[in-house]
């Protein structure tokens, strides 16, 4: 496939793997966290770990936006969706995320009008087509997705569309990385930076990680060779005694990010003082709400919601998986009580979730290892 095959060449992958192995210091174990769920998906789908020496361990981070949604936020949205005058719209991955009172699929079965959309702009189109209904967009995602929500709200305001609002769950990546760096559970050596988040925020916001914590970070693309090259760049930094932020994904990531998108985000959203992340707990200044200027489009102001915090199921260990403390298969209910068909935890719902990615792809790699033994 054009523009893609060159990033999936197995011979180049073997060569990069050998060069990475040559950079390993004997007896040292390296833990590298890929922050983004898209990277986790690529790692399992293409068996990227198989090209790396045993001394390099890839640790999965919290960058799946579906996986970090707390149960209470699902319940709040269902409370809105159960109003007869409301059409709730959301991305496909959200439909099966369990809340305390079931998922959006369950709410749909009970009669709520919940529709999947590809883009928030599709939700706005539904609002235009249904002027007698309130259309609410359930917004999730990091800085990659927040601009599309912001742009949609700006278009709604410009067009004078009054029956559209946003239930905003957008989160920001830097506070989550800070929380992981401050976690006593985990010792990390370096980070693979989220490529598409970085197209928006650039590389500059990560500089404190290298400067203050002494850990290299390389912003990476999403093809297998992108990831292997990023690991090679990290290992080169270790070999040369450097700790810097570098950009492997130069084909779309600029050092200062997309300034137009950042300006739009600053106009439409404001930082929440705190926000609960599933598994990570409450993190200050880590999420967005509608700004006062766009308060008319805030579904949380337009509708009454329970706003109750719901504890995760006791058996679920998504928190440890999201922090990289546990591997997916080390969770007590992985693959037994919790599967993609009947998920208990959010990490098993989205294809970007570490548990779902491992369940669908990683277990084959493990079988290969067993066969070789």
């Amino acid at each position: 496939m054009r523009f893609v095959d060159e990033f999936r060449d197995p011979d180049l992958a073997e060569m990069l793997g050998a060069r990475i192995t040559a950079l390993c210091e004997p007896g040292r174990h390296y833990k590298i966290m890929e922050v983004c769920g898209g990277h986790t998906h690529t790692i399992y789908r293409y068996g990227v770990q198989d090209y790396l020496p045993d001394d390099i361990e890839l640790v999965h981070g919290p960058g799946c936006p579906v996986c970090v949604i707390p149960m209470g936020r699902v319940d709040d949205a269902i409370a809105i969706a159960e109003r007869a005058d409301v059409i709730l719209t959301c991305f496909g991955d959200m439909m099966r995320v369990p809340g305390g009172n079931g998922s959006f699929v369950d709410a749909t079965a009970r009669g709520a009008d919940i529709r999947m959309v590809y883009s928030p702009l599709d939700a706005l189109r539904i609002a235009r087509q249904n002027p007698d209904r309130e259309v609410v967009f359930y917004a999730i995602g990091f800085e990659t997705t927040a601009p599309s929500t912001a742009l949609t709200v700006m278009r709604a305001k410009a067009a004078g569309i009054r029956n559209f609002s946003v239930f905003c769950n957008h989160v920001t990546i830097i506070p989550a990385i800070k929380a992981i760096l401050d976690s006593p559970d985990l010792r990390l050596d370096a980070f693979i930076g989220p490529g598409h988040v970085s197209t928006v925020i650039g590389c500059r916001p990560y500089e404190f990680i290298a400067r203050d914590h002494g850990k290299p970070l390389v912003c990476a693309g999403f093809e297998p060779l992108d990831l292997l090259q990023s690991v090679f760049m990290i290992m080169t930094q270790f070999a040369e005694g450097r700790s810097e932020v570098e950009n492997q994904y130069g084909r779309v990531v600029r050092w200062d990010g997309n300034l137009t998108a950042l300006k739009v985000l600053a106009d439409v959203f404001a930082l929440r003082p705190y926000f609960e992340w599933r598994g990570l707990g409450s993190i200050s200044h880590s999420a967005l709400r509608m700004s006062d200027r766009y308060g008319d489009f805030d579904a949380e102001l337009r509708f009454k919601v329970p706003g109750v915090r719901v504890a995760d199921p006791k058996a679920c260990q998504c928190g440890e998986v999201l922090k990289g403390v546990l591997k997916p298969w080390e969770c007590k209910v992985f693959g037994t009580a919790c599967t993609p068909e009947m998920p208990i935890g959010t990490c098993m719902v989205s294809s970007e979730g570490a548990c779902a990615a491992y369940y669908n792809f990683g277990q084959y790699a493990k079988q290969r290892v067993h066969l070789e033994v």
Partner: protein
Amino acid sequence: MNTGDPAVLSEAPVSCELTDGCITCGDVAVVLTVVEASGPDARCRDDAGRTEDVATELVGAVAPGNRLLVHAGVAIERVEG
């Protein structure tokens, strides 16, 4: 990713496939090529020939042949190289 009529991405039913990941959310974005630009939207095409309308306000003026990184119906950056 979207399935259904292969010629029209934007009219296809939304679903997630574990093989390709979910393009409806997360940090997954796709590279599309501009076919026709008109106002704030551009008609774009992927490598398989499927087309969709993409909002381009965040990347400035575009022209046919430009390649864009598209996420949730919105171009978030130009693709170089």
